[in-house]
């Protein structure tokens, strides 16, 4: 049987660290809201999505503990996200060349 460690070593970052991450998320939210008012032309969407991605990385790594889980979990997330991205790109080949 593969290793069954139910030993409860908590890595994680404690109350202080979690609060810090939360402050970071709030800061990013205020940035994305204030940037939305400025017209960046074509880049608006990319900037907004970029900030959303950074926020997600924070949530997934710290709130959802992925940084401290077994590596296989990261592989799983990679597989799912990669599939999603591929689906988007291939659909884009249809509508943007019609």
């Amino acid at each position, binding site marked *: 049987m593969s290793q069954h460690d139910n030993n409860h070593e908590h890595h994680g970052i404690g109350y202080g660290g979690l609060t810090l991450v939360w402050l970071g998320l709030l800061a990013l939210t205020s940035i994305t809201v204030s940037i939305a008012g400025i017209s960046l032309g074509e880049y608006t969407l990319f900037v907004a999505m970029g900030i*959303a991605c950074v926020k997600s990385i924070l949530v997934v790594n710290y709130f959802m503990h992925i940084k401290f889980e077994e590596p296989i979990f990261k592989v799983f997330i990679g597989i799912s996200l990669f599939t*999603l991205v591929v689906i988007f790109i291939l*659909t884009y080949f249809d509508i*943007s060349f019609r």
Partner: protein
Amino acid sequence: MSQSDQAITASGDHGHEHRDDIGSKMGMWLFLFTELLLFGGMFLAYGYYRYLYSDEFHFAATELSTSIGTLNTVILLTSSLTVALAIAAIQKGKKNFAIFNLVVTIGFALAFMVNKYFEWAAKMHHGIYPGADELLAKSNGEIIFFGLYYVMTGLHGLHVVIGLVLLAVMLVFVIQDKITKDKYVALENSGLYWHLVDLIWIFLFPLFYLIQ
């Protein structure tokens, strides 16, 4: 407790009683991927129509209130923090602090839904809902925008409600000591679900409320 657990696993006793926290979390993550792809399909539809109706989408989005959207973002982010704190607290055996954080999380979830209610009610009051004459008088791109808006925020709202119920059950379990310092994977998994709800909103927010 933890030692006897391991003894049972090592002796290869009853498959039904054996406990594998990493396995449970793995199952939960796999379930989260299905949620990710469920919303992924919606985001694909959004991207598809945003490409086709770029100008109408920008115009339609002016109807949405950035301040309510921002408020709800802050609410969800904070509730994500409190649920993470609740897990950290239970790991340290601080039952009361965990209960406090769970109660706060549930409170935030309710606040989110109340906000959503007022937001939708205002829209509907102005005749912006699928099938309304006022909406049908608008351009196709705007109809689609609001169709997507209702479906995506509605589906997300449904997930908030499910998460809320899940966390309420966890709260009861913590109070009854069914979730303890040594056995808290159910709370962790509910927390993961709640964070997913937050993650979806992190993307919904700029796509609907910030594209004026």
